[in-house]
């Protein structure tokens, strides 16, 4: 191959920077347009939210990189490997989307996702996330307190618990073709836990619309409980008088309690919960009671035997 020396190249041969920059811009635009065409209409994934309030709940710890938050997920509806959701959640259609809110409420309603997005000012909250598998992250979520939504349906005096149900559709969620869990995924909270301001109805992360693999278009985040308590891709919220059945509790009643509050003193029967590995760090760190939110939530469990109600 013949390689010209710098002195051999006449200035007129060099492509002016405006020309190649312009060409690159065109290629980027074309690539972006074709990618957008594949996405469902409405809010495109990775779209930025215009105005976010910096919420009151922002821990002062370094957020886990976006790449890790969106490629290391437990979302069995798309497969049991951590990498599966990022690879396979493209089949989830997040528009149109509606959430039925019913049960022990004065005004049962079905909310379109567009309505929920405008219901209350969106906040960015930086929370710790502790998985029951003893790893953890720090995630800047976008959303507002679940209480805002629940207030609108006027829970009655019989509403003691709240049940969350994830979408059931094996065509969109290929993991549901297997029987690893009892589909649809269901989770639950006590009403006071659900009404607690920390419990976040979540529609985004890192200032963007929630990526499918993180539970799009709408999920909850309960930062003082193990991650599996925070149901994803929710289609129904039902207020009940009795404690609802929950998926992981059915799968392993001795391993996954209804409460599942983060607790370094109560080990999982098969592994220790005393320490955790923060994703991106080498040394393990001690796990904090209620995942560091004891000040805000410990009083919800005053007088309860947390070894028994794990």
């Amino acid at each position, binding site marked *: 191959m013949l390689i010209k020396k710098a002195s051999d190249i006449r200035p007129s041969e060099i492509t002016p920077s405006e020309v190649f920059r312009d060409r690159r811009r065109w290629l980027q635009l074309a690539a972006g347009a074709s990618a957008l065409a594949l996405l469902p209409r409405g809010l495109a994934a990775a779209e930025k939210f215009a105005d976010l309030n910096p919420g009151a709940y922002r821990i002062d710890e370094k957020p*886990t990189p976006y*790449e*890790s938050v969106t*490629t*290391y997920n437990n979302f*069995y509806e798309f497969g*049991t490997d*951590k*990498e599966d959701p990022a690879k396979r959640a493209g089949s989830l259609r997040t528009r149109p989307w509606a959430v039925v809110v019913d049960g022990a409420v004065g005004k049962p309603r079905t909310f379109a996702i567009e309505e929920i997005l405008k219901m209350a000012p969106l906040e960015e909250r930086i929370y710790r996330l502790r998985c029951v*598998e003893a*790893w953890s992250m720090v995630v800047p979520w976008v959303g507002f307190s679940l209480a805002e939504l629940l207030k609108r349906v006027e829970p009655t005096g019989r509403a003691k618990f709240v049940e969350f149900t994830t979408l059931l559709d094996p065509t969109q969620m290929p993991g549901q073709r297997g029987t*690893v*869990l009892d589909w649809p995924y269901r989770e639950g909270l006590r009403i006071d836990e659900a009404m607690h301001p920390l419990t976040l109805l979540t529609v985004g992360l890192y200032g963007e619309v929630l990526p499918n693999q993180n539970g799009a278009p709408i999920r909850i985040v309960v930062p003082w409980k193990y991650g599996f308590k925070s149901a994803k891709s929710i289609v129904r919220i039902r207020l009940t008088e009795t404690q609802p059945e929950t998926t992981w509790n059915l*799968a*392993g009643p001795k391993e996954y309690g209804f409460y599942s509050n983060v607790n370094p003193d109560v*080990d999982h029967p*098969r*592994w*220790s919960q005393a*320490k955790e*590995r923060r*994703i*991106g760090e*080498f*040394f*393990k760190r001690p796990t904090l009671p209620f995942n560091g939110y004891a000040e805000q939530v410990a009083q919800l469990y005053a007088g309860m035997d947390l070894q028994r109600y794990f």
Partner: protein
Amino acid sequence: MRWNQPPLAFVASARLAVFSASLVPLALLVHKGLGDALGANPIEKITRTTGWWTLFFLAVTLAVTPARKLAGWPWLGRLRRMLGLFAFFYGLLHFLTYFVLDQFFDWMSIGKDILKRPYITIGFTAFVLLIPLAATSTDGMIRRLGGKGWRRLHKLVYVIAGAGVLHFAWLVKKDITEPLIFGFAVAALLGWRAVDACSNAARPTPNPTAPLARKRRQASPPGS
């Protein structure tokens, strides 16, 4: 070429090929590690990968004797020691990953794990049992133990393989597909041995050749 008795050069190249192929999983792991491609939780990935390959090599080692006898290719037996040592090699990497990268020499925590967590108890036991097998894999050790003693000791590999499968099954949260596949493989390989032993016992052995065969066998690890 006669497959039941190929030329020596063929067996030598087969051994070289198996040796190189056995290093590929490690090479890929190192390559991914250097390229920062082990995902969000690299330590977990290394632990899972080395553990998976340990079970794989244990199963393949156990498959040598059935394959040798079913195909009638005695030379396959010459690959067995190397495959068994690779099982130990990946098991050692797996253990070191846990010991150094995951726990970072936290003796207290490791001790508690071994005592309190059944999957670690059984996994650690399996690893410890592998050590005498690796240590007695040399020709010299085989001679010192004698064919019979060596064979008896190396029957431990059946226990180790079973323990390895249980270790895998007990650590997964819910999806036991892979542990089941390994479980079936190991069960089939051990089952074949049971059936083979029964049919051999039923068949009367011509007496005069038996002592001769035993003598010949003492030089190299015989199949069982």
